[in-house]
């Protein structure tokens, strides 16, 4: 067999691609994993959390092997106003025990480790290799063109896991042009804290960790949110902004990040911190509205490349969706090899598997959250309204405490009518409650 011929070519060594390569290699298939970076993880960026139950199915007790920073035992959700904040602060004993609910990881070490698991299983990892195009024979995809000498790589199946800006899915004609309302931009800083400061400031012991996701109007009027995740002895924090609001507001995300760092609820956490890294990445957030055609003859699209991210209000999950999609793609390819058929009908099994798993079920279930997430009042009005209401209510200034309803009505009148709030309440209900 020619060295440029494989059973399966997987493009992109992120969670989706690595999972597919690992499972295919375990079955003894000849699989290559292409990665454009120097090493797997060198280009990869996210906020911070891996919800790894799906990984536990692939690598049992992965937490004893994978490089992780902390498990998340304290989950916070915060509404942010200009100089106040209100949080839900959830502590769970169950989240502290195996199999753990979620971990904070750094992608350069986590993805690198995970890719090595695929290599150990027999996958051929080709780093510093960009896949520029697909190769077709008739309607069948039969390989990719890598940007290097003798770059023609051939296979029975190509799995495109080439990230949020998937040029391969586009070149295969599986997706249309990207639009700003499909994406949010996330930027992140890693900040080193003085020894012991992180545990002390957040009340953590041992390997316990915290995630805090913020909702509110970001600096410059950007719509989105912010996040803080605990690493071992540094914090990852960042801002997420909808691309259409970046375009409309002409505000910069780094100024919004600076403003977030100066917020009175955030600044004390960063005291004495030393800047380590700044990174940026797009998040596909339009759910079912941006999922491309997931397959064609000889090809499947997985992970961010397929828009398989759950942006469901209080949920923002990607890595677990990528792993599950990579697994479904691998299982589809394995079945195709058993049957010796790689055409469109054989690849269609991939979508069936995704629909049977939480991947397309959750994304479909929470498609009702998308109108809510695009509702400007979610950022412009409600967080500051809630904070102002509580500020007024908790204020002890000698004038006595009103009942909540009267005060809400008064404060609401400053922003909008009760009718508007009722309609938004219904939208929230449709998004999250039923």
């Amino acid at each position, binding site marked *: 067999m020619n060295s440029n011929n494989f059973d399966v070519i997987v493009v992109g060594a992120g969670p989706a691609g690595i999972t597919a390569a690992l499972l295919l290699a375990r079955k003894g298939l000849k699989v290559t994993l292409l990665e454009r970076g*120097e090493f797997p993880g060198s280009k990869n960026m996210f906020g911070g959390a891996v919800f790894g139950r799906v990984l536990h199915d692939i690598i049992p007790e992965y937490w004893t092997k994978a490089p992780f920073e902390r498990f998340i035992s304290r989950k916070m959700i915060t509404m942010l106003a200009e100089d106040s904040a209100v949080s839900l602060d959830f502590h769970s004993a169950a989240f502290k025990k195996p199999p753990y609910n979620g971990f904070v990881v750094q992608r350069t070490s986590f993805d690198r480790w995970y890719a090595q698991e695929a290599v150990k299983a027999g996958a051929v990892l080709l780093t510093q290799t960009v896949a520029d195009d697909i190769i077709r024979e008739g309607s069948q995809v039969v390989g990719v063109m890598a940007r290097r000498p003798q770059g023609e790589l051939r296979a029975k199946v190509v799995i495109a896991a080439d990230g949020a800006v998937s040029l391969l899915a586009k070149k295969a004609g599986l997706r249309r042009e990207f639009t700003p309302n499909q994406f949010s931009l996330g930027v992140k800083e890693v900040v080193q804290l003085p020894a012991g400061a992180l545990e002390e400031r957040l009340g953590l012991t041992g390997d316990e960790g915290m995630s805090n996701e913020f909702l509110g109007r970001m600096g410059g009027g950007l719509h989105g949110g912010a996040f803080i995740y605990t690493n071992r002895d540094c914090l990852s924090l960042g801002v997420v902004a909808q691309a259409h609001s970046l375009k409309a507001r002409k505000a*910069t995300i*780094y*100024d919004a990040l600076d403003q977030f760092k100066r917020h009175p609820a955030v600044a004390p956490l960063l005291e004495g911190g030393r800047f380590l890294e*700044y*990174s940026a990445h797009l998040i596909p957030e339009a759910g079912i509205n941006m999922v491309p055609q997931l397959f064609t003859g000889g090809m499947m699209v997985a992970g961010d490349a397929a828009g398989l991210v759950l942006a469901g209000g209080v949920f923002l999950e990607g890595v677990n969706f990528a792993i599950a999609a990579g697994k479904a793609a691998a299982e589809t390819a394995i079945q195709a090899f058993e049957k010796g058929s790689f055409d469109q009908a054989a690849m269609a099994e991939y979508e069936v598997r995704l629909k049977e798993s939480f991947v397309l079920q959750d994304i479909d279930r929470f498609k009702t959250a998308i109108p809510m997430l695009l509702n400007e009042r979610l950022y412009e009005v409600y967080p500051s309204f809630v904070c102002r209401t509580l500020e007024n209510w908790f204020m002890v200034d000698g004038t006595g405490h009103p009942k909540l309803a009267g005060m809400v009505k008064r404060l609401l009148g400053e922003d909008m009518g009760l009718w508007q709030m009722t309609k938004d309440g219904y939208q929230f209900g449709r998004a999250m409650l039923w």
Partner: protein
Amino acid sequence: MVDISQRLKFSRYRLDRQAHIEVDYVKCRRCTHRACLTACPAQCYLAHAENGVLFNYEGCLECGTCYVICDLGALKWNYPKGGCGVNYRFA
């Protein structure tokens, strides 16, 4: 305004000799919003008197935001050559 180049100095870049994104400034001159100037998280797009914008690829974080927001098709957007571009230490 934050000077982002100071932060990018903390990341290791391997520069390609060639820009991975090509900008068609003829189209940029027609642009009315020039949102790339503020939307790019790495300040790769700078204001330019004649063309409206000037693109520097060296600090690019390869995120794709410019590609997603440009509505004039002015960008021939691509990833850098294998192994080139930004290398994160944490992310």
